[in-house]
Every structure is written in structure tokens, then in C-alpha cells.
């Protein structure tokens, strides 16, 4: 997810991430400068003239270099850092888009909110945003502490049970940006990836309209077909929701738009029919200890039908 050069933290794609990157460079520069000063002082203390050694060991030097200098420098850096990144957690002030992202073991629940904070449509493991506009994320957790991190778009913020942390992200250009849980949250923590997809504003408006319309249609009308029947009878529907059908489980990721996802299993596999079948058949071999049981009772034919059905959920 984060392969390639430069590392994503040094390759910001939006104003919030730029602030974090700038802060990072300043901290690195300061650390290098302080290290050089300390090394030079150490060299003088060991090999310098007798008078210099006495000066370095004197009370004055310790007060100045040992206490006053770090105090001033660190305080200045703290103030600078806080002022540079103070906008990262600004709450909604105008008509910014709001999205609630809930960390689960080991995936991400995504709900797009309206102005009052009510969910309009649901998704999982992916976030679609308009390019060039700030988006306010409400980060929550359903179980343990996770940490939301999309390094090219913003900073890193913990998702703490019982709290709602606000983080802003913005992508200046359309594209796909990788993310990752950055706080150890149990077994497959390393396999808890995320993707942010930034669209042109017009394309994003169209996508939102289509998905809102699909999810607003609460009547169970799309329940026909072998795939839907199998989805219900095999037990998938008790944990997964597909809007517009009787499948309304909330324990696992929402699968209403699973056919359009970039990845499966929360950023661990490419999404195609083969990987869908592999994931359904035995996800434990791919992402050990995830909460979805292996479905060894399904035949190859049934797996094909299910995968085709899920591919069609767009």
C-alpha cells in the first residue's frame, strides 16, 4: 500500500498533509542541528583546550546549554507545530462534507453524513471524496483503539472507543491514496488497509447521487436471482448488508457497492472474481483471525454464483 519512493509522508497530496510534512522536515532539520552541536561540544570536551573543557563543564554552560537551550527550542517547536497543524482538527464550519469512519476489528465502517450528521449512505474500507475540497472525518471506534492514517492526505489520529475525534483531509488532485491502521489493534492489524479515492467534483456528485438513490430505496425489491437467494441461504446476509435487499446484517462490512471496491478484505487483495471466491471460501487463510468464518461448505459452483452476484453490486 505504501510502496514506492518517496515515502508517502514526504509526498503530500493536500494542504493538511503538507503541513504535517513541513513539520516533519523542520523537526528533522532541528534534530540534525542539535545533534551536530552536541557532537561538537563532546569533541571539545574530550580533545579541546584545558580552558575550553573547564568552560563546558562549568555551571553556566550546564544552565544555558543543558536547560535553557532545550527549553526554548522545544517550546518553540511545540508552538510552531501546533500552530502549523491547528487546522487539521477543525470542526465543520461551513458546508464541508462529513463522513463518519468507525474502526472495527479489522476493517473500516464508513458512513456519509448529511448536514445534521445523519447517515445518507454506507460503505466500507473505502472513502470517496471530491478533489480540492476539505472533508471532515469523524473518527470513532467500535472495539479497541485504532488509528486512521492516510499519509498523503493528512496526519495520523487515533480512533478511541467512546470518543469522536475530528480530522480533516483534502486531496488536491483526483487519484487513489492508500491508508493503514497505525495503532496495533490485534491479530490482523497489519492487514487493515484503507483507500481514499478522490474524484473530480462533478464525477463525485454523480457518484453520490447514484449511491444515495440506491440506498434510499429501502423496499426489498432486488431479492430475486440465484445469487441473492444463495447470499441469504448461506448466511451471508446475517452479517452483511446489501441495500435494497433483505440482507441487512451490520456485523460485517456493507457490501452494497462491493463490486466497485479497489480491494477486498480491507486493503489486502485485489478485487476480482477469483479473489472474491478465495476470500469467501477461506478468508482465514488470507487474513488469519478475521471475524469472517471460512465457508468450506460451499461448492465451486456456488462460490462462482456468489462471486458473480457480489461483482454485480455496484
Amino acid at each position: 500500500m505504501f510502496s514506492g519512493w518517496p515515502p508517502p509522508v514526504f509526498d503530500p497530496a493536500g494542504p493538511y498533509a503538507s503541513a504535517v510534512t513541513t513539520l516533519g522536515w523542520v523537526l528533522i532539520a532541528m534534530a540534525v542541528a542539535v545533534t551536530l552541536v552536541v557532537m561538537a561540544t563532546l569533541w571539545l570536551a574530550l580533545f579541546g583546550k584545558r580552558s575550553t573543557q573547564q568552560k563546558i563543564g562549568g555551571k553556566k554552560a550546564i544552565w544555558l546549554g543543558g536547560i535553557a537551550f532545550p527549553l526554548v527550542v522545544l517550546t518553540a517547536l511545540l508552538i510552531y507545530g501546533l500552530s502549523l497543524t491547528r487546522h487539521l482538527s477543525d470542526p465543520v464550519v461551513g458546508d464541508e462534507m462529513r463522513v463518519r469512519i468507525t474502526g472495527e476489528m479489522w476493517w473500516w465502517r464508513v458512513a456519509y453524513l448529511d448536514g445534521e450528521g445523519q447517515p445518507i449512505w454506507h460503505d466500507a474500507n473505502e472513502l470517496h471524496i471530491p478533489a480540492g475540497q476539505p472533508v471532515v472525518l469523524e473518527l470513532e471506534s467500535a472495539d479497541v483503539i485504532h488509528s486512521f492514517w492516510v499519509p498523503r492526505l493528512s496526519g495520523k489520529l487515533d480512533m478511541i472507543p467512546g470518543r469522536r475525534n475530528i480530522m480533516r483531509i483534502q486531496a488536491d488532485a483526483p487519484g487513489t491514496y492508500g491508508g493503514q491502521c497505525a495503532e496495533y489493534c490485534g491479530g490482523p492489524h497489519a492487514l487493515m488497509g484503507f483507500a481514499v479515492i478522490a474524484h473530480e467534483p462533478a464525477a463525485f456528485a454523480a457518484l453520490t447521487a447514484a449511491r444515495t438513490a440506491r440506498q434510499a430505496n429501502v423496499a426489498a425489491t432486488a431479492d430475486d436471482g440465484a445469487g441473492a437467494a444463495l447470499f441469504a441461504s448461506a448466511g451471508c446476509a446475517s452479517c452483511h448488508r446489501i441495500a435494497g435487499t433483505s440482507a441487512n446484517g451490520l456485523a460485517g462490512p456493507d457490501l452494497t457497492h462491493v463490486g466497485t471496491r479497489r480491494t477486498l478484505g480491507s486493503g489486502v487483495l485485489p478485487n476480482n472474481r477469483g479473489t472474491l471466491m478465495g476470500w469467501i471460501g477461506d478468508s482465514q487463510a488470507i487474513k488469519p483471525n478475521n471475524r469472517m468464518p471460512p465457508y468450506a461448505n460451499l461448492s465451486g459452483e456456488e462460490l462462482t454464483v456468489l462471486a458473480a452476484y457480489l461483482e454485480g453490486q455496484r
Partner: protein
Amino acid sequence: MADPQHHVTRIGSPARSAPLFELLRQIGWRLARQQRIARARAFSAHSVAIGTSGQTARGIAVMIQRHRRNCGWRLRRRGQLRVVHGHCSALRIGQPLGNPRHLRMLAATIGIGDHLAFDVARIEPGEARGANSVAQSVKPMTGKASIARSRIRPRQRDQFAGRGQSVGGGAFGRSASAEQDWKGDGGKWVHGASTTPVARLFRIVLAAAMLLPAAACKGEPQERHDMPFADAARGREAAVAAGCGACHSIPGIEWPQGSLGPPLYGFASRTLLGGQLPNRPEVLAAYIRNAPSLVPGSAMPAMPVSAAEARDIAAFLYQSEGR
């Protein structure tokens, strides 16, 4: 078994297959079950040593020793060097094949050699010279088979079986008159000492001639699966990008190692793809792209890879040897 004169071999069986095939299968199973080379080791020197004069045994053993010196270090490391007691007690022989997998692949071939060795051992000391010559002609063949890691292709195996039926009498085939019995009652014990040494020798030479095509049936994997325009490194990337690991564990791809489909190791030495297709590069590439079109009903779906990527993946699978 201790008395070679009363070594009996079961030929023919309740299963309705040709006697030779049945014999090969039995020996093969026995070898594979044992997971070690006890019988083949008997072939290499031990049985010869009990049955013939010490002079001959030593001669054969030295030849075998020289032949297998190349893999001696591996055997020594595994502590499998053995001192064989008998006429040539100082003779050290080891496992001619490195590991159990190779043994299973070669079970049938080794089995024949094993059987031949018993026959050789049973020849009276007076005919030791004849035994020696037979052993010499058999040894390079089995030795070559072990080096090339060749196996008997099904077609050739069937040829074996067919010839086994036509070979008159003895441990490998059945006489024309006994053919009916075999088909009728299925299963009969033939006493090992029931034929004359000369007839047995003749049989051995005949069987040795039949072994030759088995030893030469496959070249080295690199030659058979040469794919000059494909790149295994690119193939690995393509396999990762397509998510093959979601269903298969593949040597060279650490993660994921899915369990839905079969593990994909050792393609260079497989005979069939998908249970029915010949193992050729272009077939494998086509299978990777669209398995259901080649094997209807296959649970493996068509994969989103280009034809070039499929060839690369095939090359990647052929070059990954591990398990």
C-alpha cells in the same frame, strides 16, 4: 523374504488392470508407504551381495558408489549412510534419491529395478557372470532415471501395461494361457522359484528393454518448459497483482497463501494440468487466463490478466520448484 528362493511376488489382483501395471503399482505403493529407500537400497547392492559371490557384489557396489558420489554429501548430512553387512561389510551405500517426493515420483521405476535385483540375486552362484551383466545394464537406467527425475507418463505407462500382457510368463507378464485366469479370477500367487534361471534372465533383459523409454521419456524441465518470451519475475508481479494467492499457496509468494485451490508447486515436473490437460507452457498460460473454457466446471474463474501476463505467470510457475 530371508530366503530368496522363496521370494513370492503377487501378480494379478482383484483390480481389473494389466498384471505389469498392477505389479508396478504395488511396488510403488510399498515404496511410497515406507518413505524410504529400503527396497531400492536392496537393489543397489544388498540383495546382490547375499545372492552372488562377494567378488561380483563388490564390483557392482563400486559402480553404484561411483555413480552416486555426486549426492553423497547430502546423504552424509542426513546421517543416512549405511554399512551393509554381508560379504561386503565395509561397503557404504546411501539413498540414491534425495527426498521422499522424488521417491514417490520414481516409485514404479525403482520398483522394477528392485524386482530385477531380487531376480539377479536368486540366480545361482554358478551364473554370477550373467547376473553381473544384467545388473550392469539395469543400473545405469535406474540411475539415469533418478538423475533426470523422470516419471512414467500415463501413455507410456499404458504401453508398459500392454507389453506386460504380451510378455510371455514370469513375474512381469502372464503367459497367454494364464491371461484368461487373470481376467477371470483376478489375483494369484506365483512362486518365485518356479521358473528356470535362464528364463528369468531372459525376462529381466526384456524388462530392462521396457525400462529404457521410461528413463528417457522426459528431458530436463528447463528444456520442456522453455518460454523464451516470458519473464518469471514479471510473472510473479502479475500473479500478486491478480491475487492468485487468494486461493493458492505459491512458492515465491509469501502471502497470501489461500487454501481454496491447490498449492502450485513443482509445475515443472507435473504431468497434467487441471486433472486432464497436458502440461505445456501454452496450455498453462491459457488455463491461467480462462480455466472454465478449458476445463468446464472448474471452480477457477477467468482471471483478469492479459495473454502476455498469463505467459509470464506460467514461466513463474515453471521456475518455482519448492513446496
